[in-house]
């Protein structure tokens, strides 16, 4: 038992103390609600939110702490946190998480002047969250494998045997649930279930975790066709360039149940001690400036305030002819989830 061992042990002990002190310092810095600071739980794409937050901080002097994670992680997290949630504002990619939180009493009323900026059908029926941007569901197809005239005009056709082995599907993706709800509303539960079973058979081994993968798989020719939200394709095309893009997107026929507009929105936590600042942030999201930032970002989403043009030469929102399903119809998505589970897709 020599001195060397003692020195070695001493060094370990010093390091340990150092790490723990550093940890405690960090903990001390991150705790406690300060005034003029907002905590944002962000499920939207980080780059767009970053741009919005920077502009908001510049204009108001309010600091925004951003916590990035998937909207479902954030929703589960807020549920676990309960009345002590550090979050002031929650910003998600889809409406069901907001409806889920609203139904459970986690959200509070959004200022009427903010709600008035956006067409009422894009916001919470109870006024507890405001729609900020939107996307539309489309077909993505590999241009080497499928000719444009062969494309289905309705989402129902994708369950036909001719697409066996060719379809890529992300059944767990939050963007897919609205389509399921929409089909169920139009044709009833039994028909929706048969349709889902057809999709499952056609997808075979092409069941993927998310729409990014579906888009990439179709683009690379692993699958021939898929259902996505339009912005995934625009992003992939921007990432890959023209030489790497072997796919294209196509709309369903007007008012098809597969032709759905999905809304991204934001709400204020009932437990937030910074409601005034939170209201200013929501107002900023739907201001002309905020909406232009969304339109110019590379997330390729539609701004919702009338008069702000969409990015990347896309067809303007008011010229789309989607199905008439509303955010209230979509609810918290539990109808769709139950159907997907019955079809053994989830």
């Amino acid at each position, binding site marked *: 038992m020599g001195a060397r061992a003692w020195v070695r*042990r001493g060094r370990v002990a010093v390091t340990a103390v150092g790490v723990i002190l*550093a940890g405690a310092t960090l903990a001390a810095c991150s705790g406690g609600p300060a005034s003029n600071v907002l905590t944002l739980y962000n499920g939207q794409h980080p780059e767009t939110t970053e741009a919005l937050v920077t502009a908001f901080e510049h204009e108001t002097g309010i600091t925004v702490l*951003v916590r990035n994670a998937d909207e479902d992680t954030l929703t589960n997290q807020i549920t676990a946190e309960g009345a*002590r949630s550090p979050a002031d504002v929650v910003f998600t990619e889809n409406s069901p998480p907001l409806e889920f939180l609203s139904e459970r009493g986690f959200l509070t009323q959004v200022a009427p002047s903010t709600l008035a900026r956006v067409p009422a059908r894009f916001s919470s029926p109870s006024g507890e969250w405001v729609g900020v941007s939107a996307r539309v569901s489309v077909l993505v197809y590999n241009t080497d494998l499928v000719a444009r005239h062969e494309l289905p005009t309705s989402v129902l056709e994708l369950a036909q045997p001719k697409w066996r082995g060719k379809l890529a599907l992300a059944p767990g993706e939050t963007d897919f649930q609205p389509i399921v709800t929409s089909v169920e509303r139009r044709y009833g539960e039994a028909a929706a279930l048969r349709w889902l079973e057809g999709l499952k058979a056609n997808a075979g081994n092409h069941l993927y*975790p998310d729409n990014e993968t579906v888009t990439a798989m179709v683009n690379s020719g692993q699958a021939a066709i898929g259902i996505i939200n339009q912005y995934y394709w625009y*992003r992939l095309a921007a990432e890959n360039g023209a030489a790497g893009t072997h796919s294209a997107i196509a709309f369903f026929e007007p008012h098809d149940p597969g032709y759905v507009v999905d809304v991204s929105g934001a709400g204020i936590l009932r437990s937030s001690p910074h409601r005034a600042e939170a209201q200013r942030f929501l107002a900023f999201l739907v201001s002309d400036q905020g909406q232009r930032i969304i339109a110019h970002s590379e997330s390729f989403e539609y701004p919702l305030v009338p008069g702000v043009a969409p990015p990347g030469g896309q067809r303007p929102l008011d010229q789309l002819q989607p199905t008439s399903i509303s955010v209230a119809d979509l609810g918290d*998505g539990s109808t769709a989830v139950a159907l997907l589970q019955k079809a053994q897709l989830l």
Partner: protein
Amino acid sequence: MTVTAERLAPEAPARRPARRSRRPWPILVLSVAVVAVLALPIAFLLLEAVQFGWRALVPLLFRGLTAELLFNTVGLTLVVTLFAAVLGTLSAWITERTDLPARRVLAVLIVLPVAIPDFAVAFGWKSLFPSIGGFGGAALVMTLAVYPLVYLPVAASLRHADPSQSEVARSLGAGRVATFFRVTLGQVRLAVLGGALLVALVVLAEYGAFEILGYRTFTTEIFTEFTVGFNTPASCGLSLVLVGLSLIVVLGEGAARGRGRVSRGGALTPHAAHLVPLGRAKWWVLGGVVAFLGAAVGVPLGAILYWLVRGGSSTLPPASLLSAALHTALYSAGAGLLATAMALPVALLSVRHPGRLPAILERSTYLVLAVPGLVIALGFTYVSERDANGFLYQSAFLLILAYAVMFFPLALVAVRTSLAQSPLALEEVARSLGRPRREVLLRVTLPLVGPGLAAAFCLVFLEAVTELTATLVLIPTGSQTLATQFWAFQTNTAYGQAAPYAALMVAIAALPSVVLARWFDRLPGQAGAGRRPSTEGARLGPPGTVPT
């Protein structure tokens, strides 16, 4: 036990305390406290599952998809564990016992995948071969990612196993193949089993690699349940199945381990093993090893390099690489230290004071490996926010504690193995010289298990570096780690921008990997390494023995 020729030495009676020593209360109290902390997330899991209700859980559990997922999960776990055991053992035998050219260099390269996160292996294959997937793809990728968990203990065990046993077998007329199966395999059996246990538990809980490969297992389904229904109770109900599967693995390993011991001739002078000449087959074997390394090391590192050079055009915010790397290193090092400190009393109790209670305490801690990281994080969230007035919530310490809990079993395996192989005799001598118990612990036991503590630190560090799901919930707001950044880019298929984060993760993991490899290397020898031969005679106990 196939080894009979060398049962010259008595079966290590001194290894087990002859008389049951008085159970030291401080160690027992500390162990119970550690187990209580580990039980916290499992209690949360049970409470949530109860809240979800049996009636809701039954239709969710007993349906077609469950059978499909169970088949996927169990089948994959069996296949990967088998392949990893065979490949790990075979490659260890090749590098330790044959005259393969450049085998020292190859041995270093074979260990390298320990530093490559599982999902980075998946990322490598997926980004270079987009069509990879399904059962075959998942089995291939996971085998390549985890076989070092078998290779490391087996190589160490082989290096220190008594070669004279094989020589006696050969002199008695056994052929090379028969000697390998009847003597060598018998000597490394415990090492293979220990490695296989870790492999099986890791595969059961793996999420990231399967997410990238698009392969569905029980673990990915649990995450889907979180995603689509924001349904924490349902996810917890499904997690019970995973805990049950892990229970089977842990009990199965315990049964297979049995009371088996590996003996060696204590009085014989140890000498280097005679290498098996491969003859003309040498070049074929070399080609095989190089091809294997190409798949296990070349593809993932090549892919990271390729994407590093190619870059990308996506505009996700280029959060500072340095800051993410520092946070990763800080949190992971804290977790390594904490988990090792927590493992020490439990290991001391189970090895030095065996009995039913210590065995139950020790074995129960393995189950935490089966609990998804997200569940553990939400459990801590719930307790901190609802029961403790937000104490430490989203602080660095709570994140470090969560990591330490998640990866505690890895630390325990390392500390316990090391402790079981350090000679009790030295402690008894110190005690007989009138040293108080505490001083013996500090001045004899701890230095002896020092390398084991280092290995425990490294194992936990390596896992924490790549952790994602618990990190997202518990990390201080505004901080990033390499893993959170890697996933932010990877899920947006911005491979070019994900690559630097993956490269840094490998770089940060490289140092502990070297330490880990060195520990396994000297495992059955004495802690002080380098003075191995002189203590050989005093070592009454069998190497590679892990008392149950």
